[in-house]
């Protein structure tokens, strides 16, 4: 009788499996650094519309990040997190998905929302926490969420969305829907227990989830060499029995192809897929961080310019005759104008009313919360001068 687990070949030679492979797992890429297709590259053809749309959204994301970052520096919003350097991961993966696919983000994936139709005004509203914010002003900036667009509200906690994704996939599997779940997380997030348990579970339960790891090299100030000693994240897939691939995250076409292929496998074969997208976090962790404190400024600059995923895709669409200098400057100035306008509008919209402090804790406010609201209102009435003027009562 075999040991539990099945038949295994026995060997008299005692040898330990090496802790690191002879060669690191290969990284799939389609375009070279100059945006030219590599010889023998296999990729899913992208139409002009899709390519140009991907590019414009990447530019929009990049511009949005720059402008909102500046707005935070000017004190207009309290906090912001950029996705600089990860625009290709954001947009290309979103482009490869369908609308019905459920998205469980970490917090560096607003591009997915952008692709699905979240407007610049909606982004601004959330960052300003005004009355039009779908989150009703309850969360920090960049904690977007939209049930309409199947994008689950960002929660600050790391990796907690990964088990959620598996649960959602289980729900899709029960309903036999033609859709999958996608969840994103960083290299740091893979150290969390939630990651291991969830990916193991997805494998055991054959759940249609695509796990996309944005390995951008840094978890705030912790480099990947202090985060794990494995060959990145991709090798963990096999450890859990999950099909996996390593992709150049700064190559929009490679991201697009791999996510689309993953989607077909996930739904068709009802299995999880792990995609490790190698990239570089070209911005700071957040507006509360100054990454020059732990890494050289010239390194950051190099990744921002020489390895910019946006300009790499631009080179490709230009070489196809689908883009031009005029289109570029028009796009950038348009987007910039829209963003500045959105900020101005969002800034002026009033904040959510005080009653929104107490709603949605439960489906219906219970007596203790109603009482607490009454006490608060009485306090405000008694000390009106202490209460901010721009928050409606």
């Amino acid at each position, binding site marked *: 009788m075999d040991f539990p687990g099945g038949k295994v070949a026995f060997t008299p030679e005692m040898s330990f499996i090496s802790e690191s492979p002879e060669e690191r797992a290969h990284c799939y890429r389609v375009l070279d650094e100059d945006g030219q297709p590599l010889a023998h590259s296999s990729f899913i053809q992208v139409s002009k519309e899709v390519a140009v749309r991907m590019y414009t959204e990447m530019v929009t994301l990049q511009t949005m990040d720059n402008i909102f970052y500046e707005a935070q520096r000017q004190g207009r919003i309290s906090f912001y997190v950029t996705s600089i350097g990860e625009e290709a991961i954001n947009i290309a993966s979103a482009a490869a998905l369908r609308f019905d696919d459920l998205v469980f983000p970490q917090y560096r994936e607003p591009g997915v929302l952008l692709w699905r139709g979240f407007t610049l005004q909606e982004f601004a509203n959330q960052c300003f926490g005004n009355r039009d914010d779908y989150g009703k002003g309850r969360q920090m900036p960049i904690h977007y969420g939209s049930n309409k667009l199947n994008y689950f509200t960002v929660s600050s906690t790391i990796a*907690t969305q990964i088990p*959620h994704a598996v649960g959602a996939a289980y729900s899709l599997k029960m309903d036999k829907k033609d859709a999958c779940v996608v969840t994103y997380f960083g290299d740091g997030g893979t150290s969390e227990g939630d990651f291991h348990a969830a990916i*193991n*579970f997805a494998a055991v*339960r054959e759940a249609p989830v695509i796990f996309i790891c944005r390995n951008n090299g840094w978890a705030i100030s912790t480099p990947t060499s202090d985060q794990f000693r494995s060959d990145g994240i991709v090798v963990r897939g096999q450890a859990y029995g999950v099909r996996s691939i390593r992709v150049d995250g700064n190559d929009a076409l490679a991201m697009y192809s791999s996510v689309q292929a993953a989607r077909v496998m996930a739904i068709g074969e009802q299995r999880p897929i792990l995609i490790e997208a190698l990239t570089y976090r070209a911005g700071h962790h957040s507006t509360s961080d100054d990454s020059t404190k732990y890494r050289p400024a010239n390194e950051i600059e190099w990744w921002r310019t020489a390895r910019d995923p946006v300009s790499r895709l631009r080179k490709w669409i230009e070489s196809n005759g689908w883009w031009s200098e005029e289109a570029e400057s028009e796009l950038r100035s348009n987007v910039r104008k829209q963003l500045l306008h959105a900020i101005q509008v969002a800034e002026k919209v009033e904040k959510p009313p005080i009653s929104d402090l107490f709603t*949605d*804790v439960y489906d219906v406010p219970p*007596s203790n919360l109603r009482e607490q609201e009454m006490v608060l209102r009485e306090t405000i009435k008694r000390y009106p001068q202490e209460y901010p003027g721009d928050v409606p009562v």
Partner: protein
Amino acid sequence: MAAAIFQGFGASTALSLSKSIDSKRVKLPFGRSLSERRASFVVVGSDGRLVSDSSRARKLVTNAVATKADSAASTSASKPGHELLLFEALQEGLEEEMDRDPHVCVMGEDVGHYGGSYKVTKGLAKKFGDLRVLDTPIAENSFTGMGIGAAMTGLRPIVEGMNMGFLLLAYNQISNNCGMLHYTSGGQFKIPIVIRGPGGVGRQLGAEHSQRLESYFQSIPGIQMVACSTPYNAKGLMKAAIRSDNPVILFEHVLLYNLKERIPDEEYVLSLEEAEMVRPGEHVTILTYSRMRYHVMQAAKTLVNKGYDPEVIDIRSLKPFDLYTIGNSVKKTHRVLIVEECMRTGGIGASLTAAINENFHDYLDAPIVCLSSQDVPTPYAGTLEEWTVVQPAQIVTAVEQLCQ
């Protein structure tokens, strides 16, 4: 005319009850006025006949933890309803809800083919299939997170913690996501999840398996907590929790799974926010829940023989407290004794003391007395373990002192 409501006197097998429900007030939602509720009770004697004389009512006897088969076996044949054990009542409630709504599903360790460590999910995997009764790996954070994700996507999962203490591993998911996401998403995503499992001090299960999680969880905004104590309320609360759109934590007790009681055949759902009047009285209000209810009722026996008339309320709803029922009782008796299994520091009793003091201070003739477990991990030695849990003798002494 609405049917009269019979209230139980603990899940004693010495008493068999038939309960019929006022169909109009099966469930009382949050915030609605409780004026439909009755303050008076109809007492059913052990012979099944209505008792109108209150003095006779006082002589009714209940056992702390029912173990013996009862003499009412002869009358049970003629009674409506059916007899079952508490874990079977939970299973019945669960099965009925799974039949009623295909979105209801169960996940937890060994819940599937093994039927659950306390057999609450026995037979369900066979009936509903592997996908609706999911066996999970040993990763509480993961499967609680899974439950939350599934709930946000439209399912109504019931997550079983093999022992409540294990849910400490899922605390991050419960606090930061389960309680919070409905609020932080601006109401876009709801989490109709039920988290349940056995907790409390058992018989020499060791410190780690004797946790009282209700103290740790009570502060989390966005969740509701209920504790069942009889087969009747176990089934009713299970059904109510599953139907609620809020996340609900249902606390069961390791030692109460084999309680036997006769429950109605007709469908019933209890209110999550209501306390249960176990024994009306005049002298003192004793507030308790879960296993301590039985220690209280055992002490009540002694107290009644000594001439006291305690009013015993099983608070059932740990978050929020049913201050309506509790308040009415305090206004009547002016003395409060809380008997709980939680530790003295930061337990349910501590919060309840504060809530009553704040709201009903004027009605109290004496400071509130709270009997709780000591602030120690539960020792393994049986004799030591027994003395970390409030015993009936201490309850009797406390009432005597309170009523001086």
